[in-house]
């Protein structure tokens, strides 16, 4: 019996090539798309799940009540880790993690900037990052130790054995290579080239005991027998015990850290997981759309299959047998599609990885994949085959054999419902694509408030720090740059903020976080900022500017000075005098409102300097000149510069990925829906051929007939739009709430959605309608 089913399934597939092609291609793309999304979801979920002690590992977060709103953040003070390690019995190990920062590592004459972290020895025992060379408990036995990754070793030493070799850090401190870490897999949040111990940083004087300086991430490992509740309760008040900071501590599990990276008013909020859930829904939608095609085309063909069903029934087939047969047929189609889908996935994975910045591997070699994939394919086969099987097996043989094979009204109505469902999904996805794209365009075209053209920045090396003024003078006189400014951080980000700032008239009960920035001179000239009141800071012209500050408009609004110039601001136990107000400019996210920013004079610190390259020379000439001068003053450090416009473009990366993903998958969903509609239109045209012929003989023009044949489908698509657009409006408004600086969803964008959807449907259907309208009526009528 089984072979009989497979045989007839195969012959049916072969005989109805057009329908089979549509079904197989639809399911292939549906399954392929869903597999790709599911692989991506699996990848995102796998972050840091490979540590043996993963359930005992936590990030320690700060939590504080600011004016009735609970803020939570993962940056913690440097003394926290050691205190937790020493005082809390439930803590088995800890490590502080100073995020990667370019540091110069020099072996013999070769110096390279490497992304270097500062960590505690606990790092090696807490996490499962294998050491290729060195012992976990020995690598940081001495402060002057350096652990490199495999790739960093290759870059610095080539094939030489690095263990025991001397490497000079930042041209100052000699370190000995004590260990080599295997390169990190991509599915971990820890990514760096080199690690040095906090013990060394302490020796160098970089460690502070200031509990208000939240600058490192603190990880702890709990003893396995300790309950999370007990540990959390015990650790909660540690900061308050050791300092006056109004901060509680919470434990954020490492296992969820990648997907949940923020709290809203003290409650864990959805981060990346939101996108994962969204795309999981899209995966299901795509599969459903493909299954709907299968259902629609199979039931549409029921008249052709009716005779066979009648004969089988009178030959003794029960309904169960027929259901099995039709499910079997959909299974054959699904299995073929599932193999083609894997082929497509393997072709697309490299592009997908490239687009998403992931490193998803083809999992075909692993048994787990097949253990999941095979039932998954069977489930799809059952879903796709279920309705046709139930419907076809319900046909009554007496009616079929009497020639009453036209599908019952209910089936046609359900088919309409299915088409409406498909196009509702399609309309939602088209709307999502357009909204995401518009939002990104909107933020990209936002006036950042500064001129990114020909603007570069470099890290301030220790060598240059002392001779910066001479360097600056020489660069300016060379004509390579029109101006330079030293700053605390690149213009694309702020590295410091505080809630400790005060000024006259400030309500002492209100805690407000204000971003910090700094400059020595020419900030407005170099970055193209607009000073709207007062003047720029210029230490070279005004010696007293070392404690001057500039406020941005948002800061001015917050501080509410009537006459801001000359006002005093207290920060870091120093007094600063306002000399100017600068128009708001985008430092952090271009999707959010500009936050209050205070730009300090040279009494603050500098890590970076920006250069505005001269427009009179080529960029290459300018860079060559600057490099020459740089090498003169900072010979041991590489000339690693970054274009600000590139940095700015990177701010859109995550949203652009969302945009690309929605574009890919909505395109896919629309393609599959259209294939189904095409098949259905072909079938309907074939079914109505006699009617068309009669109308034609009676004088209907081709245009009349095309309108007749397409109008039914267009009505369905119009209903889909009526359902889909409000859903899209609702969902996309929720998405837009992620951005302060956002577009308003107007009628225009949804008008465009309607137009695109209708146009796509019309194009799909009209080709079949035209074919039918142009056919020779004699052929269809001859049979009567």
């Amino acid at each position, binding site marked *: *019996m089984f072979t*009989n089913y497979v*045989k*007839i399934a195969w*012959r*049916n597939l072969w*005989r109805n090539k057009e329908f089979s092609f549509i079904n197989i291609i639809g399911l292939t793309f549906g399954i392929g798309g869903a597999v790709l999304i599911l692989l991506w979801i699996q990848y995102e979920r796998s972050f840091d799940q490979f540590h043996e002690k993963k359930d005992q590992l936590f990030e320690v977060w700060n939590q504080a009540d600011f004016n009735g709103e609970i803020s939570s953040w993962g940056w913690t003070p440097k003394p926290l880790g050691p205190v937790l390690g020493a005082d809390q019995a439930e803590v088995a190990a800890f490590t502080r993690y100073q995020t990667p920062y370019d540091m110069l590592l020099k072996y013999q004459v070769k110096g390279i900037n490497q992304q270097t972290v500062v960590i505690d020895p606990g790092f090696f025992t807490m996490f499962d990052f294998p050491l290729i060379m060195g012992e976990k408990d020995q690598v940081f036995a001495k402060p002057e130790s350096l652990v490199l990754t495999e790739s960093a070793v290759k870059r610095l030493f080539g094939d030489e054995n690095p263990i025991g070799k001397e490497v000079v850090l930042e041209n100052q401190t000699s370190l000995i290579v004590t260990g080599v870490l295997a390169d990190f897999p991509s599915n971990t949040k820890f990514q760096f080239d080199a690690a040095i111990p906090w013990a060394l940083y302490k020796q160098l004087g970089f460690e502070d005991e200031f509990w208000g300086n939240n600058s490192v991430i603190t990880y702890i490992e709990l003893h396995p027998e300790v309950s999370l509740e007990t540990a959390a309760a015990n650790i909660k008040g540690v900061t308050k015990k050791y300092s006056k900071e109004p901060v509680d501590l919470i434990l954020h599990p490492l296992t969820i850290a990648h997907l949940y990276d923020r709290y809203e008013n003290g409650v864990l909020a959805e981060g990346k997981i939101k996108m994962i859930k969204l795309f999981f829904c899209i995966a299901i939608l795509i599969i459903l759309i493909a299954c709907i095609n299968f259902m629609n085309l199979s039931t549409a063909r029921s008249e052709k299959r009716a*005779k*066979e069903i*009648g*004969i*089988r*029934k*009178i*030959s*003794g*087939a*029960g*309904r169960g*047998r027929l259901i099995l047969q039709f499910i079997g047929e959909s299974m054959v189609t699904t299995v073929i599609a599932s193999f083609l889908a894997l082929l497509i996935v393997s072709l697309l994975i490299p592009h997908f990885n490239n687009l998403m910045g992931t490193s998803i591997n083809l999992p075909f070699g692993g048994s787990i994949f097949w253990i999941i994939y095979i039932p998954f394919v069977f489930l799809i086969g059952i879903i796709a085959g279920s309705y046709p099987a139930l419907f076809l097996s319900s046909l*009554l*043989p*007496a009616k079929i*054999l*009497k020639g009453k094979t036209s599908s019952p009204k209910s089936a046609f109505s359900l088919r309409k419902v299915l088409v409406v469902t498909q196009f509702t999904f399609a309309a939602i996805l088209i709307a999502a694509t357009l909204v995401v794209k518009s939002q990104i365009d909107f933020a990209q075209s936002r006036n950042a408030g500064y001129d990114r053209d020909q603007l570069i920045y470099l890290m301030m090396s220790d060598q240059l720090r002392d001779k910066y003024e001479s360097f600056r003078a020489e660069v300016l006189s060379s004509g390579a740059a029109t101006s330079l400014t030293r700053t605390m951080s690149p213009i694309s980000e702020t590295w410091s903020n505080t809630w400790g700032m005060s000024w006259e008239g400030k309500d002492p009960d209100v805690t407000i976080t204000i971003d910090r920035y700094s400059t020595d001179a020419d900030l407005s000239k170099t970055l193209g900022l607009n000073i709207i009141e007062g003047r720029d800071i210029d230490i070279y012209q005004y010696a007293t500017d070392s404690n001057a500050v500039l406020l941005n408009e948002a800061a001015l609004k917050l501080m509410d000075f009537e006459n801001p110039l000359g006002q005093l601001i207290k920060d870091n136990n120093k007094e600063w005098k306002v000399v100017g107000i600068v128009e708001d400019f985008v430092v952090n996210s271009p999707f959010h409102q500009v936050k209050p920013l205070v730009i300090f004079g040279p009494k603050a610190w500098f890590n970076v300097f920006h250069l505005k390259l001269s427009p009179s020379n080529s960029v290459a000439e300018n860079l060559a000149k600057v490099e020459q001068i740089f090498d003169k003053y900072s010979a041991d450090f590489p000339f690693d510069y970054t274009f600000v416009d590139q940095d700015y473009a990177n701010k859109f990366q995550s949203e652009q990925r969302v945009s690309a993903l929605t574009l890919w998958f909505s395109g896919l969903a629309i393609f599959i829906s259209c294939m189904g509609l095409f098949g259905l239109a072909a079938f309907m045209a074939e079914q109505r051929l006699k009617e068309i012929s009669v109308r034609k003989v009676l004088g209907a023009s081709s245009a009349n007939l095309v309108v007749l044949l397409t109008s039914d489908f267009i009505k369905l698509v119009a209903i889909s739009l009526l359902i889909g657009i409000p859903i899209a409006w609702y969902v996309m408004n929720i998405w837009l709430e992620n951005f302060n600086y956002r577009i308003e969803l107007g009628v225009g964008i949804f008008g465009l959605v309607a137009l695109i959807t209708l146009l796509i449907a019309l194009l799909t259907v009209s080709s079949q309608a035209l074919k039918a309208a142009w056919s020779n009526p004699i052929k269809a009528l001859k049979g009567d």
Partner: protein
Amino acid sequence: MENIIKTTHLKKLYTTEEVETTALDDINIEIKKGEFVAIMGPSGCGKSTLLNIIGLLDNPDDGQYHFLNEEVAKYSERQRSQLRKGNIGFVFQSFNLIDELTCYENVELPLLYLKLPADERKKKVVEVLTRMNIMHRKDHFPQQLSGGQQQRVAIARAIVAKPAVILADEPTGNLDSANGEEVMRLLEELNNEGTTIVMVTHSPHDANYAHRIINLFDGKVVTENIREQFRV
């Protein structure tokens, strides 16, 4: 002789939104084992409806129907399907072969649903195809055969499970006279071997093969003629 089919006050209505049509009205017939009965009457008189009910493809709306001494008028589709299996063979005017299956596979179909083992199926199919003189075309698909050949395959399929009754709905309607004659001779032969045959026909010539002719008009039995040589 024992009754194989017996209907008492059988009634069948067809209802659409506006009209109710009485397709069969108070039909009382008895068909004995081994009989060859022809049902005749003008188009729309209810012949096929009666054949469908007799063939357990449909239920009457009223009255009783005994098939093999079992009251089946209220049977569900599942029960009717069970009873049909192996007991009733159908032959149609339009042959009704499955286009996607070969002749051999078409004939094998009822045996598959009877869950017979493969070797037994093969034996029976070969036997019946040989008997129908169509064995040489067993691997052909229906469209590759002439009408007469297709009807021989259809008869082969109807008899392969050795049913007690063969119901034939205008079996020669789509055939030329020579092929029609051959089909009728085959049915006669089967009847001679003991198979009960109920045949709906328009053709007085074909009806002549039957022992008894039931004439329907407007859903009622108007006359029952027993052919001379079969009168008891």
